[in-house]
């Protein structure tokens, strides 16, 4: 167990790991994305109430779900970097922020596109929507804070502190905003009891969610690898690897 933890703290090991995984993960994700979209967009049945506009669900919901989860990925990396001083955790945290922000942005934009035919407005002051906007601010805040420091070692510590503070707050934000006002769809995928949507719509949806998770991981790896290349540009192990 400790060896694994140790390995994850070692830049050469992680670099090699990314190098090995990316070549087969990348095509897999692309295929999954294509298949999932095709299934969702072409073969899943039309919704009797919303018609075809509901199909955006196959992007909207996975993006929303993973956007949330991404924050916890980032904050966990922050915790590790702060407590155990693992430098790689900084890199991971920094990698997660823009990806998470992008997912959040996708959720917001697809939601807005969906909202126009369904609610007749691009934007409503609804609980989940508002909290998604706030999540977006949290991500952007971490990114902006990192950029604002010239010294990146220090920047990483600052961001770690911020993302931890954010972690404590995310559930609170969610609950409070829910309490405030809600117009948005309640959670309809339930793992206990029956789901509110039909399985012919549900399976592609679940598939897309999984794919979005994998995509997240893939993007993280690409990002980490690139940071490592920059950071250790002058170190012997990287040169050896690149020359191999």
């Amino acid at each position, binding site marked *: 167990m400790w060896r694994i933890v140790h390995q994850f703290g070692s830049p050469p090991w992680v670099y090699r790991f990314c190098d090995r995984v990316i070549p087969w993960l990348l095509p897999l994700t692309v295929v999954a994305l294509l298949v999932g979209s095709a299934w969702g967009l072409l073969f899943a049945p039309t919704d009797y109430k919303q018609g075809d506009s509901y199909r955006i669900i196959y992007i909207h919901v996975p993006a929303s779900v993973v956007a949330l989860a991404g924050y916890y990925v980032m904050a966990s990396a922050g915790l590790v970097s702060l407590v155990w001083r693992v430098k790689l955790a900084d890199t991971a945290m920094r990698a997660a922020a823009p990806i998470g922000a992008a997912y959040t942005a996708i959720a917001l934009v697809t939601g807005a596109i969906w909202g126009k035919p369904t609610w007749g407005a691009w934007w409503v002051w609804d609980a989940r929507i508002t909290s998604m906007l706030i999540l977006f601010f949290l991500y952007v805040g971490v990114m902006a804070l990192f950029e604002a420091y*010239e*010294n990146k*070692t*220090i920047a990483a*510590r600052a961001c770690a502190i911020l993302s931890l503070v954010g972690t404590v707050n995310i559930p609170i934000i969610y609950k409070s905003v829910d309490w405030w006002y809600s117009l948005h769809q309640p959670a309809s995928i339930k793992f206990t009891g029956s789901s509110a949507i039909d399985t012919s719509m549900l399976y592609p949806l679940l598939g897309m969610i999984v794919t979005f998770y994998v995509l997240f991981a893939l993007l993280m790896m690409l990002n980490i690898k690139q940071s490592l290349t920059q950071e250790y540009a002058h170190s012997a192990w990287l040169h050896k690897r690149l020359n191999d």
Partner: protein
Amino acid sequence: MTATLLEVRDLDVYKGPRQLLTGLNLTVTTGSLLQLAGGNGVGKTSLLRAFAGLARIEVFGHLSRCDDVLYSGHAPALKGTMSPRQNLRTHPAGLCSPSDSELDKALAALNMTGYEDALTARLSAGQQRRVALARLFLPSARLWLLDEPFTALDVAGVRVLENRFREHADDGGAVIFTSHQKADLGERLEVLDLESYRGP
């Protein structure tokens, strides 16, 4: 009997991407007077802050020191809207507050009698420096870390401060300070030229 107040082995000091100092070794015992010398930007302030414990991320190597430290940096932590007395009495580093008579004596030692209740912002540059230095004339820590303490002082003020340094060393304290002038502290004074530890 002398005790070690600060010990440094193989210290590297960084600032951002730049390595300022490398391979520094140093032992400061009671009774030492140590001047850090070197040109502008060589890293005197950075090193002094590292000694004070204010720079932990960018310092590598072994650094141990006693707990009983007084640090005074380029910025004197004086509030212009308060009087010298209020400034000293409520100094943020002072766990114990000095009594009024101690305060007056300290200010008097620096020739600031009559200004105890003036507005600090209205004092002259040298007078403000004196207020900041009055901490050294109050019951204080054993190891002093002072960044350019002689700045803005007139000749008489420099004299007073030098005497105080000697007194403090005699009382079992130690002083590490930076200065671009040659301090008149007799042969007790050691000068550490940081130019010879410049990083790559």
